[in-house]
């Protein structure tokens, strides 16, 4: 069992659930991204990879019981570079729960959104409008 005060390594993955309505097509980058609003909370819930591994859980297990949500990952090093603190705050139903704490300006949130990588992307649950934009762009058609 990993103690609550154990250090968080720079390369550790931090996972966060994303609701399908929070995922948007970015025409500039020609990819789907979580919206910046996903990263707004000054005490943003995440799930720590080392605890998941310690419990022999896959990252996807964070989505158990949430069949429509997708999952994104940031590294601890990235969020620390954005003047955030990573805290281990286990809750009864999830020992991997933690928080990324600190002020998150709009510019910072955008950087979070760009840095986040999808671990699980449930395209079948996405907003149809965003899927249509993606298909128009990737199929070479017009919107």
């Amino acid at each position, binding site marked *: 069992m990993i103690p609550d005060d154990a250090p968080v390594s720079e390369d550790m993955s931090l996972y966060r*659930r*994303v*609701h399908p*309505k*929070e995922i*948007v*097509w*970015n*025409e*500039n*980058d020609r990819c789907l*991204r979580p*919206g*910046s*609003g*996903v990263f*707004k*909370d000054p005490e943003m*819930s995440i799930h720590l990879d080392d605890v998941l591994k310690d419990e022999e859980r896959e990252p996807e297990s964070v989505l158990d019981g*949430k069949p429509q*949500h997708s999952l994104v990952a940031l590294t601890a090093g990235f969020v620390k570079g954005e003047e955030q603190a990573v805290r281990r705050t286990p809750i009864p139903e999830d020992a991997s729960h933690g928080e990324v704490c600190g002020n998150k300006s*709009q*510019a910072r949130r*955008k950087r979070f959104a760009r840095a986040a990588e999808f671990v699980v992307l449930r395209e079948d649950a996405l*907003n149809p*409008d*965003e899927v249509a*934009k993606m298909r128009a762009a990737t199929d070479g058609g*017009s*919107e």
Partner: protein
Amino acid sequence: MGYAVSPLIPPVLPPEAQPVRSARIEVLAPQQSALADRGEGPAVYMVVAPEASPWYRAALDRISDLTALAVGWNGYDAREIKADMVIDAAAFLAKVAFPGIAPPSITPLADGGVQVEWHRGGLDIEIAFSDDEPGVFIEDRQGSEIELPLTEAVSAIASYWSRLQET
């Protein structure tokens, strides 16, 4: 053309998960008079729209749908989406949904707000209708970032009009 927003009781949800006040947006006949603004109670809310883009009606549906999201919708502790925020976002879209402009993305915010976004033409424009942190945030990938009050949202879109056109 006018559009109406009316209160709507959502389908059965757990008591703790029911939105405080839900909203549905409907298209009115063009000859009907339109009011602006929002309020409490069973009144029908209307906004005045220009000759709207083809995506406008669908956008209103998407915004209305957000009011069905229950507490905790983001997988954590998100609040229900506030009908007032929905109405404000719909009123904003009515002012900028001119033919030619590309459809925005519409996302819920965990604080109960709504965000309208465009990510095209080298611009990332985010307009947050939120009690906690309302505002307009524009990043021009040519190198500038601007933050504006919500009252300047329409003029901001107008100033970037040519770069937000559908291709």
